[in-house]
């Protein structure tokens, strides 16, 4: 999500482009010179942009994508060169803790399933006005880390977004899928459809899950007809 004052203007974009270019140059150096030289350039780069990385979520995404192209995962281990240099690991570790807190607090209400949207909103609220901006991309990365550490976390793709699962559980994959969470939210986002003719109370269906269950293959075009 875009927020005012977080560097979405032309100047910020230019800065981002410059930094990306610098990282690309580093990549070239890496390819042609020795490891020591590479490391020192990297250290310089890291210290220069440490602040930017912590402050700007857009920058973080770009940065991580760049790292991926050179085969580096800044979050690979808590004590790695990158995470120490940049403090990126800390950032995601802290975020992970926050995510766990939110999920635990709501588990009794939503059975351990929460939409990425709601999680994002609550995390932002918990961080307060003056904390660093956190994007949904950040949440997804943090959850992936949590998953690796075996905390029972998982993400279920639904429509164009995700459900975050904080308790290992198997969704009932029967023809009737009843989710007791944020139903209004799902309806609002166009992720769920209302069925008012079900026996008992109203039911909510996820077309994305339904199309996987029906025996007929649904073409991508057909699937797009139903989901946002």
């Amino acid at each position, binding site marked *: 999500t875009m927020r005012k004052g977080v560097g979405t203007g032309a100047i910020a974009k230019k800065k981002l482009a410059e930094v990306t270019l610098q990282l690309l140059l580093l990549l070239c150096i890496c390819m042609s010179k020795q490891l020591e030289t590479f490391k020192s350039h990297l250290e310089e780069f890291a210290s220069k942009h440490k602040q930017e990385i912590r402050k700007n979520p857009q920058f973080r995404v770009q940065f991580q994508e760049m790292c991926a192209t050179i085969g580096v995962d800044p979050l690979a281990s808590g004590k790695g060169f990158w995470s120490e240099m940049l403090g990126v690991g800390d950032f995601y570790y802290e975020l992970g803790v926050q995510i766990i807190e939110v999920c635990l607090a709501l588990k009794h209400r939503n059975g351990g399933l929460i939409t990425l949207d709601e999680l994002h909103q609550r995390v932002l609220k918990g961080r307060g006005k003056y904390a660093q901006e956190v994007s949904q991309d950040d949440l997804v990365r943090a959850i992936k880390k949590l998953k690796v550490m075996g905390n029972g976390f998982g993400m279920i793709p639904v429509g164009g977004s995700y459900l975050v699962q904080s308790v290992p559980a198997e969704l009932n994959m029967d023809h009737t899928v009843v989710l007791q969470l944020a139903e209004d939210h799902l*309806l*609002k986002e*166009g992720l769920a*459809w*209302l*069925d*008012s*003719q*079900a026996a008992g109370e109203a*039911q*909510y*269906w996820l*077309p994305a899950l*339904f*199309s996987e269950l*029906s025996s*007929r293959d*649904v073409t991508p075009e*057909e699937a797009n*007809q*139903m989901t*946002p």
Partner: protein
Amino acid sequence: MSFEWPWQYNFPPFFTLQPNVDTRQKQLVAWCSLALSYCRHHKLYTLDVMEAQESPVFNNKKIERKLSMEAIQVVFEELRKKGNLEWLDKNKSRCLVMWRRPEEWGKLIYQWVSKNGMVNSVFTLYELSNGDDTEGEEFHGLEEWMLLRSLQALQTDGKAEIITMDDGKGVKFF
């Protein structure tokens, strides 16, 4: 050939008018498409709203879901806005369904006429819609009101002239 239902037809919420505006839009597009395909397949040119509610297209007995009268009216209104439906009465109890527009019918009819070298011949409306010669053509069985509109479209194009004969109407093709 039996009618092929789209997968939405077996999706229970499809029969509930969706509260979310964007979702409802997608739903209505699918319903309009289904209604027109169904009418086309069964060569239905008019619909009675009461009967429609019990017809398989709006009532899927297998999954025990049916469109409410209110929802059917919403679908029909969408069809009307798109030019595929015309109400026959003020109470909106019966309507004409145009799964093919008059111009398109006209074109088909004219193609048949010219292909068979019958330009400049005169036909009664009955001969066109129910004659032995037209059996097997798509416009065979076309209801008179639609046939007339189609011929009127051709007339506007200068390809036909509707004439009044002793016992009804006829048409001459140019």
